Each structure stands twice: as structure tokens, then as C-alpha cells.
């Protein structure tokens, strides 16, 4: 069982559609991060959420941290082909300072 469960595993949509991907856990975290990875590249940090219930916006991307700080969501409005990639959530374990990732959601936006 993975610490962070991401869903869906794969999403293929048309340009202009909206979508939401999820990152869930049974554990409580002090913060959670979202990364995006494009083919052939390493992941790049999009956002860090810290406070329960926090909402952060990055252009067409909206990130929310659950009230109980166990889960998070990423909503993309009017998806573009440039949004195509692997979206990963990650947390730093309080014990040992390990940076742990979920399995990711592969997003494909077709034009």
C-alpha cells in the first residue's frame, strides 16, 4: 500500500475540458507538494500547500489541501495540450526527512 494514492492513474481529455486529479492518504501531513513531469525530464515543483483547507491558484491550475491535511486535489480549467504530463504529489516524512511521491496521474490533453 502506497502512502499517497493518486487517482486517476491516466486521464485523456480534449483541449478546453476541465479536470480534477486527487492525492489521498490516511496519514496527516504538515505540507504537501505537487510536481509536474514532462517526458524525458525530471519533475518540477508546481506548488506547496501547508494549511488545512488552503487553496492556491497558478494560472489555470487550482490546488487544494484537505481540511484534515490528509488529501489534496489539483483542478485544471480549460486544459491545454501544454498541460500534458505526469502530475505527482509528494510529502516530506516528519521522521527521517524522506521525500515520498505518489504514483502519479498521467494527463494527456488532445488538441
Amino acid at each position, binding site marked *: 500500500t502506497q502512502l499517497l494514492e*493518486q487517482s486517476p*492513474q491516466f486521464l485523456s481529455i480534449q483541449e478546453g475540458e476541465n479536470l480534477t486529479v486527487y492525492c489521498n492518504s490516511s496519514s496527516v501531513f*504538515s*505540507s504537501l*507538494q505537487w*510536481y509536474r513531469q514532462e517526458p*524525458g*525530464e*525530471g*519533475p*518540477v*515543483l508546481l506548488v*506547496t500547500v*501547508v494549511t488545512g483547507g488552503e487553496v492556491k491558484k497558478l494560472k489555470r491550475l487550482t490546488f487544494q489541501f484537505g481540511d484534515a491535511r490528509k488529501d489534496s486535489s489539483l483542478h485544471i480549467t480549460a486544459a491545454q495540450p501544454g498541460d500534458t504530463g*505526469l502530475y*505527482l504529489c*509528494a510529502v*516530506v516524512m516528519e521522521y*527521517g*526527512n*524522506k*521525500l*515520498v*511521491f*505518489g*504514483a*502519479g496521474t498521467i494527463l494527456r490533453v488532445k488538441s
Partner: protein
Amino acid sequence: DAGITQSPRHKVTETGTPVTLRCHQTENHRYMYWYRQDPGHGLRLIHYSYGVKDTDKGEVSDGYSVSRSKTEDFLLTLESATSSQTSVYFCAISERTGAGSEAFFGQGTRLTVV
């Protein structure tokens, strides 16, 4: 871009041979990580380091060892490569952990064990 370089970028090796991957950083960041990436598994932590000569295991450490003798270099060794270790390996660095942290990744090393 963060100064982090992985070498080699591609390698094909035979089963049973030792392999060492190198991660070099110019950022003087304290934390360094090695991950492997396989389809459907995201990034799985192999080993990480929180300082020179300070390392710890991740979730998939069997068959791997690491060393960090200098701040800038973190080496990952496969003592006797197996086909199950065919993967893309990523190194990451971070100045700190917690809410204020950001991990920067290398370009990855594609390793094929035949």
C-alpha cells in the same frame, strides 16, 4: 536551473555486473535523493542523504548502496545488476525539508540490464 548533473545519461549493462551512477550538484544543498521511476509506480525512493557520510534507506533499497563523501557528489551503486533494476533513475537535491523546501531533479539516467 539548479546545478545538478547525472552521469551517465544512458547505460546498458549485463546482469551480474556492478554499476555506479553519479549525481553531482553545484548548489551546496544538504539533502540528496536517488529515485527510480517505473511505469505505474511514480518515483520510488531508493536512498537519500542528509549530509556528508549521512545516508538512509528508502522504500526500495535492496540491491543498492550509496555513498556521499563530499557535499556535491552522491553515488548510487548496483552491486550486481539484475534485470529488475532496469529503470530510469533520478537524483534530486533539496536545501531543506518541510514546507519551505523544493526538490530539484536531474535529467535522469536510463539504465538497461540485459
